[in-house]
């Protein structure tokens, strides 16, 4: 038999001024199943809570309804009081008669009648409440960071420095990502290598970080606190335990004309190579596609040159299985292929280059040792044109969004060029100068005022070659006139787009992505670093275009999320989750499709001999967030949501 306690709070005058609490308490006392119905000035006060606890104990109440303010105010308070009185906290319901009754109505009788309906329906609901226990999920305190660019490094170091284990997986042979390719960084013009390489070394040497380079994520299973991750270690053909990184093999390699990915095609590398001189780990890999031995079975020059016998052509891909508690995805971006702009002649004219290529030219460790030289003839350009938004904010040909970093790096390029080629001229075609950020607008002003970058507000329509010059035809919308600039080099501020395999990779880890392939955060404003999958966090440009400060900030935020998760041995969650009635489930899997969290799995039901009888839906309590979308989809009414069960809602509506 239900023994419900109803506690009607006056909230000083807030409720009592409109709702006749005495009448309400009396009426509720008459309601079937109500054992106690009392009123009090402030139930949330200490004496108020004590009186609730006392009533629970003395009357052996099976559930309570607090008729007071919104559950968003004091539900936690009264649940705690219940627990202290020995009543399961989920046997407490709040009837909101303040925010949704006394404060919004003028007529006292009507308000009292409404309050009675509200309380009655909550009494009917609480009669059907079940004893629930918070869900405890064990947490493996080991984080996986995917991606060894600046975001991944920052996240890994922050987590590792807090004393937790980290596995860092990087697809390329070396850490560094895009930031390692940059020359100087805005808005301070400090050298990217100078701030990046120490981080890379620190990561590699950190006792809490296990570094897996030249490795890719093969599969991710499980859920928050309990992921099972399989990593494919791609065959390097170099034994990392034996190699000392002396580089003899690289100097001896006869294949020397491979276009260097790191130098964006402006430099060359060998078939056995490290991406760049400061690679971490500083151990080469063999590019199987270019290696003579792998092509025709002869050569092995590198093996002969290696005194340590570190080169092993028989090496195979290996798999490593990891138990992981939290995942930070920091897989970065790629630069959009600008060949789609036929009018800019990228790929046709060698001196039309991308911003990233310009970075390599300007980098002291780049193919030109930091000198700005034209790729076509190696001459110093006297006039450089920069075209901003070469892909961004262009719904017809490129992408709709703003790539965010281009305004700043173009200003930086103009500056670097002016510093290196003193009498050089720069023209920058732009749509808007978006320089929001600490020190950013000052930076672009400096490019204009000190380094004399000439900004032309307008788009470029055509580019052609004439007398050894690149003729750039555009419009100056401020003057309202077409302009033609004869340039020696043209730099395109290309769009930042998701990695080519971003969508497939999202499916591997089970996170959502937007129309472009950038990963979706759980909430754009309030949960910007969490993915929609619990325990998977997002850092850096894989979520949206970002500059270095933003990537680092977001990475540190993911680290704090991971550390919060790791601060306890077990994760406690509200027990509001869906449960399935396996007996009645028809296995139509509509719920699997409807679930926003991929929390519903197919479970085999077998008979005693182990024969598969049927498959039913199983809700993984670690993943379910308790929205109930599956419940209202389920035609056979097999799924139900703890805390908001069909029985509870039915009773609540019928109690109105």
């Amino acid at each position, binding site marked *: 038999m239900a023994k419900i306690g109803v506690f009607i709070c006056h909230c000083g005058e807030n409720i009592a001024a409109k709702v006749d609490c005495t009448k309400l308490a009396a009426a509720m006392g008459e309601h079937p199943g109500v054992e106690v119905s009392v009123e009090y000035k402030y139930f949330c006060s200490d004496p108020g809570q004590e009186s609730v606890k006392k009533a629970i104990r003395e009357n052996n109440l099976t559930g309570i309804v607090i008729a007071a303010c919104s559950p*968003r105010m004091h539900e936690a308070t009264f649940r705690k009081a219940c627990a202290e009185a020995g009543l399961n906290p989920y046997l407490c319901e709040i009837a909101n008669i303040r925010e949704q009754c006394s404060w919004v109505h003028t007529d006292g009788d009507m308000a009292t009648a409404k309050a009675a309906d509200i309380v009655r*329906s909550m009494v009917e609901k609480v009669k059907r409440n079940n004893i629930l226990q918070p869900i405890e999920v064990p947490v493996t305190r080991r984080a996986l960071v995917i991606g060894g660019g600046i975001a991944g490094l920052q996240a890994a170091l922050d987590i590792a420095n807090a004393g937790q284990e980290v596995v860092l997986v990087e697809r390329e042979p070396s850490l560094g990502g895009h930031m390692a390719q940059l020359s100087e960084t805005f808005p301070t013009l400090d050298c990217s290598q100078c701030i990046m390489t120490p981080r890379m070394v620190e990561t590699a040497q950190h006792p809490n970080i296990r570094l897996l380079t030249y490795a890719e994520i093969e599969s991710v299973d499980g859920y928050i606190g309990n992921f099972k991750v399989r990593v494919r270690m791609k065959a390097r053909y170099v034994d990392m335990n034996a190699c000392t990184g002396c580089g003899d093999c690289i100097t001896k390699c006869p294949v020397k004309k491979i276009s260097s990915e790191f130098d964006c095609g402006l430099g060359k590398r060998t078939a056995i190579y490290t991406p760049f001189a400061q690679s971490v780990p500083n151990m080469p890999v063999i590019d199987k596609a270019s290696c003579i031995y792998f092509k025709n079975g002869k050569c092995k020059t590198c093996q002969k040159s290696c005194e340590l016998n570190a080169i092993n052509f028989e090496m195979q891909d290996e798999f490593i299985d990891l138990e992981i508690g939290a995942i930070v995805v920091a897989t970065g971006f790629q630069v959009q292929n600008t060949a789609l702009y036929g009018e800019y002649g990228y790929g046709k004219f060698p001196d039309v280059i991308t911003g990233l290529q310009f970075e390599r030219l300007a980098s002291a460790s780049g193919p030109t040792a930091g000198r700005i030289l034209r790729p076509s003839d190696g001459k110093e350009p006297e006039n450089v044109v920069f075209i901003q938004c070469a892909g961004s904010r262009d719904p017809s040909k490129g992408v709709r969004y703003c790539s965010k970093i281009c305004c700043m790096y173009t200003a930086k390029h103009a500056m670097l060029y002016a510093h290196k080629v003193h009498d050089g001229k720069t023209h920058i075609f732009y749509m808007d100068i978006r320089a929001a950020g600490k020190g950013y607008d000052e930076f672009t002003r400096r490019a204009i005022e000190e380094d004399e970058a000439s900004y032309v507000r307008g788009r470029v329509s055509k580019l052609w070659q004439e007398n050894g010059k690149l003729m750039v035809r555009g419009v100056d919308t401020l003057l309202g006139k077409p302009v033609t600039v004869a340039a020696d080099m043209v730099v395109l501020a290309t769009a930042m787009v998701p990695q080519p395999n971003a969508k497939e990779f999202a499916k591997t880890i089970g996170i959502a992505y937007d129309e472009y392939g950038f990963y979706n955060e759980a909430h754009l404003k309030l949960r910007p670093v969490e993915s929609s999958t619990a325990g998977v966090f997002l850092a850096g440009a894989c979520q949206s275009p970002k500059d270095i400060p933003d990537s680092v900030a977001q990475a540190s935020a993911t680290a704090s999320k991971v550390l919060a998760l790791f601060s306890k041995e077990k994760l406690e969650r509200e027990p509001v989750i869906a449960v399935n009635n396996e007996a009645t489930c028809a296995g139509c899997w509509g719920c699997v499709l409807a679930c926003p969290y991929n929390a519903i799995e197919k479970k085999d039901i077998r008979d005693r001999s182990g024969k598969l009888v049927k498959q039913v839906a199983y809700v993984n309590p670690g993943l379910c967030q308790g*929205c109930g979308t599956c419940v209202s989809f389920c035609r056979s009414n097999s799924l139900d949501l703890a805390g908001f069960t069909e029985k509870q809602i039915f009773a609540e509506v019928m109690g109105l």
Partner: protein
Amino acid sequence: MSEPFEPKIVAFVCTYCTYAGADLAGTSRLKYAPNVRIVRLPCTGRISPMFILKALQKGADGVLVSGCHPGDCHFTHGNYHARRRWMVFRALLDFTGISPERVIFSWISAAEGSKFADLINSVTEDIRKLGPFDQYQQLIKETESPATL
């Protein structure tokens, strides 16, 4: 003259947006018609069409269903799923004779306290004009007597 007709309206709302919006109307001390009774659910995705039928069975003259605006769902997609179901269920009710004027859907965010208050007022007035849902209430009344074949 008998008392003016006071419509009974049941609202099914999600806790993260519309319920919070209703709370905001309260904390802002906005005044609105006392005819609505709110049932709180975690998400619009949890709102089953059965709830609407049961509210009508309880004598509701109108039903309001409300949740987060598209893109704002706390559970990311619950409201998108709900929207499809609403559209279909609304058409079904319309076809079987329950006027869409009695079953109203809206998006109200946690910041839209005034939208909530205004909507309750306008819905209450609209349903007052429509009058009591006599046809349905006749059916309910019928259930109180023994069934005939």
